[in-house]
């Protein structure tokens, strides 16, 4: 736990909330691409634990289930057979092959196998060299995923579609649904949300966009950068969380594209009126945010709009923050998190499911920053967000945990 802006290295013996590059690649970025066989070339562990890692994820677990003999004699042959069997049985749009620590160390040439499988079947097979020991954290896995997918979409025959964008770095299906609708309303077409609800066809179409909108720059700015270099597609870092952020982002987009922002903002103004009413219940409440990186920053403004104050931020991979005067720590461990919560005694903890039960055990109200049943992005999402936050403080049960029988 250090107040550093850059992603510090995990120390030995940490109870870190960080994952490995395999997790970043398989779970965060690629996991949500539909109709793809996500084949984990590993012993059972990596494949099993990454299976439906996200609470809302639904999919099958494909693995080569390497045993001791496979580790000794190499797993290339087994992998090829597995890919061919998967294609035969499931008829996917593509097969993604993920390397893990064991298969990375024994040096299975997954790139060569992927190429061979493609030649045999004509189904795209992408190999990700994302063994867990590569890089400092799962963030490196995001980079591996982005660069490997870029190599796949690299296409000379780009035919730009007017007024079209890609939403890059949005991994939440509910958020992406709201945002696609919102952008449609201002007259912009979303070609692909990378990667919530993405398909191989949509990903291939990405090169035809006029502008890339980057939601989570930590995980996927690499892809936008690569696309700018190769195809000259400019990119914008946007933030659709909170009313003001959402307006700003839309106006900034309209500088690049033909977008009818004013009318949409005006139509949404009732939402601001509703959420302003919630302020009296929330005014002055203190929030502690614990997220990967970007989402932590994104949440500051929306909470302020509800009259709340961000007391501190903990990240997993470090962020750069200029105008924030609270406590910022990186690589938070579960024991340190308990310590910090006890010290800051916030009224609300915002994080994802990893931290949920730490907050619950300490009887501190918890808010899932990734959205529960609804998305929190866009104007509509901001209303969902405000309702959910108020809902927590309306729940008497949180106060009952502090009941003192001696009174």
């Amino acid at each position, binding site marked *: 736990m250090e107040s550093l802006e850059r992603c510090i290295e995990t120390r*030995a013996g940490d109870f870190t909330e960080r994952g490995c590059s395999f997790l970043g690649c398989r779970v965060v970025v690629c996991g949500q691409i539909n109709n793809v066989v996500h084949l984990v070339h590993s012993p059972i562990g990596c494949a099993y*634990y990454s299976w439906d890692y996200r609470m809302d994820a639904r999919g099958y677990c*494909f693995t*080569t289930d390497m045993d001791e003999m496979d*580790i000794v004699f190499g797993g290339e042959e087994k992998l090829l057979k597995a890919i061919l069997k998967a294609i035969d049985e499931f008829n996917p749009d593509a097969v993604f092959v993920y390397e893990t620590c064991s298969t990375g160390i024994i040096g299975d040439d997954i790139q060569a196998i992927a190429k061979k499988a493609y030649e045999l079947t004509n189904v795209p097979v992408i190999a990700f060299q994302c063994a867990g020991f590569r890089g400092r954290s799962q963030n490196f896995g995001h980079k591996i995923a982005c660069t490997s997918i870029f190599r796949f979409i690299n296409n000379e025959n780009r035919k730009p579609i007017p007024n079209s964008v890609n939403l890059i770095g949005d991994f939440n299906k509910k958020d992406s649904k709201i945002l696609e609708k919102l952008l449609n309303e201002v007259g912009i077409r979303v070609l692909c949300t990378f990667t919530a609800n993405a398909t191989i066809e949509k990903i291939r179409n990405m090169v035809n966009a006029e502008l890339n909108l980057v939601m989570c720059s930590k995980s996927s700015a690499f892809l936008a950068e690569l696309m700018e270099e190769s195809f000259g597609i400019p990119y914008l870092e946007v933030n659709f969380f909170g009313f003001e952020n959402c307006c700003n982002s839309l106006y900034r987009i309209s500088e690049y594209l033909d977008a009818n922002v004013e009318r949409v903002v005006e139509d949404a103004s009732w939402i601001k009126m509703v959420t302003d009413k919630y302020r009296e219940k929330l005014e002055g409440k203190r929030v502690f945010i614990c997220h990967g990186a970007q989402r932590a920053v994104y949440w500051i403004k929306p909470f302020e709009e509800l009259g709340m104050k961000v007391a501190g931020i903990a990240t997993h991979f470090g962020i750069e923050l200029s105008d924030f005067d609270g406590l910022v720590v990186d690589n938070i461990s579960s024991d340190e998190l308990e310590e910090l919560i006890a010290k800051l005694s916030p009224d609300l903890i915002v994080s994802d499911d990893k931290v949920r039960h730490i907050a619950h*055990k300490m009887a501190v109200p918890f808010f899932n920053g990734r959205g529960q049943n609804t998305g929190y992005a866009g104007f509509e999402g901001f209303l969902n967000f405000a309702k959910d936050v108020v809902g927590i403080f309306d729940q008497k049960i949180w106060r009952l945990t502090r009941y003192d029988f001696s009174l």
Partner: protein
Amino acid sequence: MISVYSENSPLKVNPPKMCQIAGVALATLGIDRAIPLIHGSQGCANFVKHLMSRHFKEPIEVATTALNEKLIAAGGEKRLLEAIENVRNRINPDLIVVATTCLTETIGDNVGVVRDCIVVRTPSYAGTHVNGFENTVLEVLKFLIKNSNLRDYEFEKEEKINVVTGFVNPGDVRELKRLLSHMNTEYIMLTDITSLDMPIMKKRKSETTITRVLESINAKATFTFGEGISSGKFLESFGVMHRNLKFPIGIENTDKFLLEVSRITGNEISDRVVESRMYALDGLIDVSHVLRRKKVAIFGDVEKVIALTDFALEMGMKVKAVLTAVKSVRFVEEMKYIAEKNKVKIAVFENSDLYTLHKFLKDNPVDVLIGDYRGRYIAEKEKIPLLRVGFPICDRFGYHRKPMIGYSGVLRMAEEIANLLAGKHFG
């Protein structure tokens, strides 16, 4: 009669088994003030922590050495010692259990440098979570006994028993404890994972402290349920009897367990135990007409599936298919015996996966499926109700608290199956 399906497929789709470190983490967290330290990439620790936290709905503490390319080049041993030091400084645990991983086993890291901690060799490519649990209990016993002054403990055997619980849930351990205390029998749980179901604002606490673990060599007998046999064998060398039974799942298996406890300790089956048996039977008889002749498929760990099969047959259900993800001669042999004894036909899948079971069930439909939440894909697609038992169950609440063991376990499972079928049964 059984038909055995054992396919050595290069591709596994939805295999219901985990790797050893899940077992290490579970066994270790069942010991008071003990901490698992995973020696490998930080992902290993994170994955296990995340899965367990979603199942138990509790904060889970798992430390990692967080190895990466650069650190491996400098030598993992140094990093491991540093990690142990760091964990000690931060939370000062009574015990640190180091688990190796694929990474450290494949590069051949020399974990022999660790002298004052337990090291369990647990690469993912060998064994499963069940072996991880078993190996951890064994290594903990070995380590603690080796490093203690044995003379303090070598007096006459006391009337208490050890129970190696195997990879079960807090609800199961709680039921075992309840039955044993109703038998007025003192017990040592190896290990007591009720620590993973604590009241709000209470830190993890377990009855099994390291002193208690050591006292296990002073018990009359060790009970194992097919999982954790090696610990039972090890304690046998200290004059502790070893009894390996089936999991006490179902009325008969529970009866057998309690009778054996009674025989060894000399404690009579108490009125309270008889009462909870009668209480369960009252409920079981009430649902018996709903469960009668209902077709069922069961999947999961070898020993639990065997005992669950006994339970299903007890209720007059037709066990159509049983599946385990590991290669197991014992599984096939036991199923053969059960099928012959009950004159039924069972399809036995070993070294298999849930996708294979799914394909089988399309042609051979069943009324109910028993297993962990990974069975949900079959359940949803084929519209077969799924009785959630075991680990992990991430998509429902409170299942870590619901036992499958003991009289409470039978009652809970039978009633829940009846409720799942209620719509169909009562129209």
